[in-house]
């Protein structure tokens, strides 16, 4: 027990972020991790960390993911952000998108944004639609490049027109939010959300369904279409859509005094049970305990 404790505790509290990862890796005795004998981090994490330190952008992204989830390595969000930054600086598009998301959530991103924008532009020139999304966000919010909302939205339109459902959804969200230099436009938001849903984005299907039920403009509300989009999202196993659909079927929906969706308690409960069952399965798979359904 003492030996095991010493072995596993060797790297306890180590910092695997980009700044200290080399030192932390050096402290891990190589034979323990290469033979997987009491290595304090998983084999996968060890391999990714070695690659990341060697400058492999894919490995850097992998380390960031493992650190973010605490998968085989101690969870470290700051370290994860650091590795996402390193990968993004080398033009890793998924890492750049994740960085954008983290920035919007208020995270401090220790990365060279000018370098990221330049690297993304190369990917954009190759026609990468996700790179267009990532760069568009940086342009709209003026990070790493001068702020240019028009160019940002043009880039998103280009990606959406090329068939990116995520770009269409991003564009819709810009029109819904108070993005700098982009006047709020529910109609444009609706249009792009519908486009994203038609291109197969499940979250957009849910949002579109929700919009049809509660759009600010009464003329655009249509519970029948709302039901159809919620059903589509529910059928592809979107738990939030299943929950909302359950609510709609439980209460029914009307236009004035006309019934459009009659209440169907059995179908409502069926979707509720499905959502709950999948929620528990997901929680079990991720090793979490859920205190609420």
């Amino acid at each position, binding site marked *: 027990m003492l030996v095991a404790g010493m072995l596993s505790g060797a790297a306890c509290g180590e910092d695997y972020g980009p700044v200290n990862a080399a030192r932390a890796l050096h402290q891990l005795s190589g034979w323990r991790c290469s033979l997987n004998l009491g290595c304090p981090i998983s084999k996968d994490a060890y391999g990714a960390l070695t690659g990341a330190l060697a400058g492999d952008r894919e490995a850097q992204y992998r380390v960031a993911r493992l650190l973010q989830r605490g998968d085989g390595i101690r969870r470290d969000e700051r370290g994860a952000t650091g590795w996402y930054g390193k990968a993004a600086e080398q033009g890793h598009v998924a890492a750049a998108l994740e960085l954008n998301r983290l920035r919007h959530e208020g995270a401090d991103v220790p990365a060279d944004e000018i370098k990221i924008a330049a690297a993304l532009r190369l990917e954009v020139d190759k026609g990468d639609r996700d790179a267009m999304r990532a760069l568009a966000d940086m342009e709209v919010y003026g990070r790493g490049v001068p702020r240019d909302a028009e160019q940002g939205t043009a880039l998103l339109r280009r990606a959406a027109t090329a068939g990116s459902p995520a770009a269409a959804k991003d564009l819709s969200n810009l029109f819904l939010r108070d993005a700098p230099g982009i006047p709020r436009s529910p109609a444009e938001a609706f249009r792009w959300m519908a486009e994203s849903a038609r291109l197969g984005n499940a979250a957009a299907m849910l949002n579109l369904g929700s919009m049809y039920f509660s759009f600010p403009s009464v003329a655009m509300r249509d519970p029948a279409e709302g039901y159809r989009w919620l059903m589509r999202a529910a059928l592809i196993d979107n738990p939030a859509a299943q929950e909302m659909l359950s609510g709609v079927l439980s209460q029914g*929906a009307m236009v004035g005094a006309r019934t459009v969706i009659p209440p169907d308690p059995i179908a409502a409960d069926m979707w509720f049970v499905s959502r709950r069952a999948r929620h528990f399965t997901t929680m079990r798979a991720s090793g979490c305990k859920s205190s609420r359904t």
Partner: protein
Amino acid sequence: MTAVQLAEAKDRAAAWGPSSVDEVLAMTIPLPAVAGTKPPWPPELHGRALDLFKEAGENPPLWLRMPDFERNEAVMSAITAIAEQFEGSGNKHCAEICRQQLDYVVPPIKPGGLSTVELARYLREHPEVSPVRAMRKEAATLEESMHFWALCANGIEGAARSAAQRILIAHPYFVCSGRRMKMPLKAALWPPHIRLSSANRNSPAKVRSTSQGSAAKCKRWPEGAAVPLNAPSSAGMIDLPGQ
């Protein structure tokens, strides 16, 4: 829901499996059949009153039955039944409010409404008749019937209810919230050219504005469902769950 229904829902959920995006996009999704199904609860019916109606089961007493809003007489008898239930429980105030809603549901005395002269004469000859009723010009629309029934039905509130009390709510639990449904005491906006007898002083304008005011005050929708299309968006912004 019955145990059989719950079991069926569970079985359906167990048998269900997700589809692919391509399959779903290619699907034509039919709406659930409306004919023969129970219509949705009017959005204006809320709170404990809604729970009571829901819990009343398949064969509820008349006063706990949602009427067919397309049939004027069904709405009237439903409102009358609720009013009688209030009277039976000694709640004259709520009974009066319910009977007042009848004025907005009854067909007009004369199609197209009475002229001013006819109206004045009619009210003189029938002092017991509410001027609201006498002034009606056309039959209530579906929405109006639903609205005025809900104003009456919302007065029903159940306090602590056990399973045994679900169908027939005993006397002490049958209460009307005076806070939510206030009666106008005096007519203020009655047209000056019509003299009022003591029995018909409640002006339609006053009654209507007060009733609708209280309804608006109590208005709230269950999240994400049964939102009537004429409902104002609370924040003027869309609440998107998937973002």
